[in-house]
C-alpha cells in the first residue's frame, strides 16, 4: 500500500469549495460541539466507552433489584410486572448497551492504532454508528419515563408473548425499535472495521502480523454483519404483526411462533460470540505483555477464533432443545455445540502456553486476564453440560443456565473488558490506576461474582426456574438465594471501588510516560494521550509484535521514519478528515422517526395522522442528513509538523495541490 500516492478513488474538487451555509465543516477542537461533530476514532471510542460504562451501572442497578427481590422467599419488593421489566432490561442493557459498546470502544480506539492507521476507513460513518447507538439506547429506555413502561417481554422477546394480543403496551414496541436502531449502528460500525482492517494496514503489516485483538475485531465484525440481519428480519416481522396485523406469529391465521425463536437464535448465538471474542482478543494482548513472552501459537489462536465464529452459526437451536424439534435436529445441534468447545479449548491451552515459563508481572490487568481464563473455563464446563440435549432437558429455563451465561459473560467478557480498561488507561489518558485500588477492586469483584453465581448452579440443578419473581419457602432454595444476593452486594461494592478508582485516576491519577507496561504492539509506540493524527509517520512493520521489533531495532527504524517523514512532507503533509454534523443530524432524524413508530398511538385521535406526520418528519431529517453528508464530500485538510513535532495546520482543503 502506497500511502503517499493520492487515491484517485476519492473525487477531488478542482479548487477549494466556497464556504456555503449548509456545507461548512466544523472546525472547533474543544467544547461540546467538537464532540458532537467529531469523526476522530479515539473520541468516538471514548464516547462509546462512557455510554457503555453508564449503562453498565444502570444494568447493574437492575440486577441488584432482582437479587434483592429474590433474597428471601415470597418477597414483595417488586411486583411480578416490575420483575419482568427488571430482568428484561437487565439483559437487554447489559448485552446491547454495556458489553457490546465497551467492545466497540476498544475496537474504535485501539484497532486503528494497532494497524498503524490514522483513522478508520469511513470516519463519518463511524460517527453515525455512535449516534445511532445513542438513539437506540434512548428508544429502549424511554419507556421508563412513560405510562406503558420499559420493555418487559424478556431480552429475547419470544412470540407470542410479545405479540399485540398478550402485551399491547408500547413497552415491546420500544424494545423492537430500539434493537433495530442498535442493529443498524452495529452493522455500520462492523462494515467500517472490516474495510479498515483489510485495507488500511501500515506497510509490512500482513494479516498474519496483525495483533490478535485486531484479528478478533475482524472476526467479530464479520459475525455482526452476518448475524444481525436475522434479528432485523425477526424484529420486522414482529413489528409488522404488532403495527399492521400481519400473521407471522398469529397462530389463528397460520403463523408459527416457533419461527421467532429460530430467527432470534440464528442471530442470538453468534451474538454471544460477538460478546466473547473481543474479550478473548484483549486477553491475548494482556497475557504476552505481562508474561514478557510472545503469544504462544499465534496462528492457531487466530484460526481458532475464526473457527469459533464460523461454527457459531451452526449451533443456534441448542437454545431450543426442549421445543420438540425432533431427534435428528436435536442430535445435530448437540453435536455441533460440542464441536465448538474444541477451538475454545485450543485457545485456552495456548494462553496457558503463553504464561508458561514467562516472567509474570502480576499487575491489575494481568489479574483480570488470569481471572478470565479460569472463570471462562468454568462457564465453558457448564456450557458443555448444556450441549448434551438430555441433560439440557432438565437445565433449560433453570438457574443452571443463568449460572452458565454469567460465568462466561461476567467471568469472561466483563473481566477482560475491565482488564482492558486498566491496560489501555495509560494510553488513552496518560495516567495509570493505582495498583492497590485496582487489585482490591479485582478481588472484591472476583469474590462477589463467584459468591453470586456459583450457588446458582445448585439452584438450577435443584429445579429453580428462571424469570420467576418469587419462590416458596419450602423448595430448598432459600439459603442459596440468600448467599447469591449477598454476593451481588459484594460484587456491587467491587464495581463501585473499580469505578471510583477509575474516575479518580482520570482526574488525579499517577501520570505515566509512554509504554508504561513494556508493550509489544504499535498502539504503545505513540505518545499518551495520542495526538489527533496518531502517528507522526506511518510505521513500516517488519514482524509480528511490531512495536517490540521497533524497540529492538531502533536505528533501523529511526532511519526509516526520517525517510518517510520527508516523503509525507513532499506529498502535502498528514491528511486528516474534516469533522461533520451530518452523521449526528441523520441519527436525530432516525430517533424522531423511531419514536413515532414505536411510541405513538394509531388511535385515538389525532392518532395515525400525527404518527405518520412525525415519522415523515423524522424520515425527512434523516434523508436530508444523508443527502448533505454525501454532498459535502470526503474531504479533509493537511497537517504539517513543525520542528518541535507540533502540528501547523494548513488552510487548504486536501485535494488542492
Amino acid at each position, binding site marked *: 500500500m502506497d500511502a503517499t500516492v493520492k487515491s484517485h478513488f476519492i473525487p477531488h474538487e478542482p479548487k477549494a469549495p466556497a464556504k456555503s451555509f449548509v456545507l461548512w465543516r466544523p472546525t472547533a477542537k474543544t467544547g461540546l460541539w467538537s464532540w458532537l461533530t467529531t469523526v476522530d476514532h479515539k473520541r468516538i471510542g471514548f464516547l462509546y466507552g462512557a455510554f457503555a460504562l453508564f449503562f453498565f451501572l444502570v444494568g447493574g442497578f437492575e440486577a441488584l433489584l432482582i437479587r434483592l427481590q429474590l433474597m428471601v422467599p415470597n418477597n414483595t419488593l417488586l411486583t411480578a410486572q416490575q420483575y419482568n421489566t427488571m430482568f428484561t432490561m437487565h439483559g437487554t442493557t447489559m448485552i446491547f448497551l454495556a458489553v457490546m459498546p465497551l467492545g466497540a470502544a476498544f475496537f474504535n480506539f485501539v484497532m486503528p492504532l494497532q494497524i498503524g492507521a490514522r483513522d478508520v476507513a469511513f470516519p463519518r460513518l463511524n460517527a453515525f454508528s455512535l449516534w445511532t447507538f445513542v438513539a437506540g439506547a434512548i428508544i429502549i429506555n424511554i419507556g421508563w419515563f412513560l405510562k406503558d413502561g420499559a420493555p418487559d417481554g424478556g431480552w429475547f422477546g419470544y412470540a407470542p408473548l410479545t405479540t399485540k394480543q398478550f402485551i399491547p403496551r408500547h413497552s415491546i414496541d420500544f424494545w423492537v425499535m430500539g434493537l433495530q436502531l442498535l442493529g443498524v449502528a452495529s452493522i455500520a460500525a462492523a462494515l467500517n472495521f472490516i474495510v479498515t482492517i483489510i485495507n488500511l494496514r501500515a506497510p509490512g503489516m500482513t494479516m498474519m502480523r496483525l495483533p490478535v485483538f485486531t484479528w478478533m475485531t475482524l472476526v467479530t465484525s464479520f459475525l455482526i*454483519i*452476518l448475524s444481525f440481519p436475522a434479528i432485523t428480519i425477526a424484529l420486522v416481522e414482529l413489528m409488522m404483526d404488532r403495527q399492521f396485523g400481519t400473521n407471522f406469529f398469529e397462530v389463528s391465521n397460520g403463523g408459527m411462533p416457533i419461527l421467532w425463536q429460530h430467527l432470534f437464535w440464528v442471530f442470538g448465538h453468534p451474538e454471544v460470540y460477538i460478546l466473547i471474542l473481543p474479550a478473548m482478543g484483549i486477553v491475548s494482548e494482556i497475557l504476552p505483555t505481562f508474561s514478557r513472552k510472545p503469544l504462544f501459537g499465534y496462528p492457531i489462536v487466530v484460526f481458532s477464533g475464526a473457527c469459533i465464529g464460523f461454527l457459531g*452459526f451452526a449451533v443456534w437451536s441448542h437454545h431450543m432443545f426442549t421445543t420438540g*424439534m425432533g431427534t435428528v*435436529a436435536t442430535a445435530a445441534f448437540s453435536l455441533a455445540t460440542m464441536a465448538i468447545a474444541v477451538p475454545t479449548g485450543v485457545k485456552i491451552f495456548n494462553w496457558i502456553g503463553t504464561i508458561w515459563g514467562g516472567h509474570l508481572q502480576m499487575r491489575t490487568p494481568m489479574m483480570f486476564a488470569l481471572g478470565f481464563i479460569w472463570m471462562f473455563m468454568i462457564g465453558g464446563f457448564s456450557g458443555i453440560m448444556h450441549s448434551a440435549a438430555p441433560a439440557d432437558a432438565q437445565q433449560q429455563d433453570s438457574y443452571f443456565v443463568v449460572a452458565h451465561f454469567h460465568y462466561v459473560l461476567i467471568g469472561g467478557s466483563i473481566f477482560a473488558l475491565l482488564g482492558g480498561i486498566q491496560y489501555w488507561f495509560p494510553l488513552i489518558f496518560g495516567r495509570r490506576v493505582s495498583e492497590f485500588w485496582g487489585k482490591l477492586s479485582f478481588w472484591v469483584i472476583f469474590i462477589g461474582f463467584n459468591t453470586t453465581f456459583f450457588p446458582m448452579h445448585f439452584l438450577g440443578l435443584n429445579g429453580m426456574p428462571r424469570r420467576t419473581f418469587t419462590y416458596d419457602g419450602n423448595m430448598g432454595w432459600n439459603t442459596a438465594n440468600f448467599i447469591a444476593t449477598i454476593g451481588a452486594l459484594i460484587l456491587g461494592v467491587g464495581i463501585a471501588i473499580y469505578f471510583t478508582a477509575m474516575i479518580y485516576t482520570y482526574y488525579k491519577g499517577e501520570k505515566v510516560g509512554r509504554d508504561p507496561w513494556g508493550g509489544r504492539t504499535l498502539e504503545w509506540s505513540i505518545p499518551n494521550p495520542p495526538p489527533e493524527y496518531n502517528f507522526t509517520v506511518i510505521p513500516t512493520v517488519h514482524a509480528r509484535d511490531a512495536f517490540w521489533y521497533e524497540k529492538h531495532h531502533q536505528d533501523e527504524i529511526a532511519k526509516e521514519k526520517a525517510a518517510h517523514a520527508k516523503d509525507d512532507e513532499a506529498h502535502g503533509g498528514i491528511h486528516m478528515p474534516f469533522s461533520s454534523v451530518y452523521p449526528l443530524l441523520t441519527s436525530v432524524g432516525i430517533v424522531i422517526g423511531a419514536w413515532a413508530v414505536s411510541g405513538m398511538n394509531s388511535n385515538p385521535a389525532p392518532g395515525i395522522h400525527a404518527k405518520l406526520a412525525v415519522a415523515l418528519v423524522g424520515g425527512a431529517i434523516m434523508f436530508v442528513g444523508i443527502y448533505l453528508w454525501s454532498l459535502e464530500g470526503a474531504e479533509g485538510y493537511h497537517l504539517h509538523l513543525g520542528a518541535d513535532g507540533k502540528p501547523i495546520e494548513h488552510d487548504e482543503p486536501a485535494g488542492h495541490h
Partner: protein
Amino acid sequence: MSDVTTATAHAPGHSVEESKFWIYVQIAMLLAVITGAEIVAIGLPFIKWSLVTALVILSTVKFMFVIFFFMHLRWDKVFCTILFFIGMVLAGGTMWALLQLFGSEASKPLSAASTTDAPSAFVTELS
C-alpha cells in the same frame, strides 16, 4: 474540463474496455433467454424433482453471470468474491437448515381440531 473526456485511443486498457460493452449485451440476451426457458419449463410434463433441479440450476447460472460479469467479480481481486460467497453460502446454509427443521415430521403443526382442545389432545398423545 469538458464534460466528455476523450480516453486516449492508445491507452493499453482501452481495447479491453471497449469489448466489455458487447459482453454485457450478450449476457443480457442470455439471461433473457434463460428466463424464457424457465417459464416454459414449468409447463413441461416432467417429474417435479427434475424440474425443480432444472429451475435451480438455471437460476444459479443467471445469478453467477450477474455477479461475475455485471458485478465485475471476474476481473476484480478474488477477496471480493470470497467476501460475497461467505455471505451467500451462510445464507444458503441457514435457509437449508431452517427448511429441514420446519419440514421435519416433528415440526408439522397440529391439526386445527386438536389445537382447539389442545390439552386433551396432548394427553392423548402421551398415553
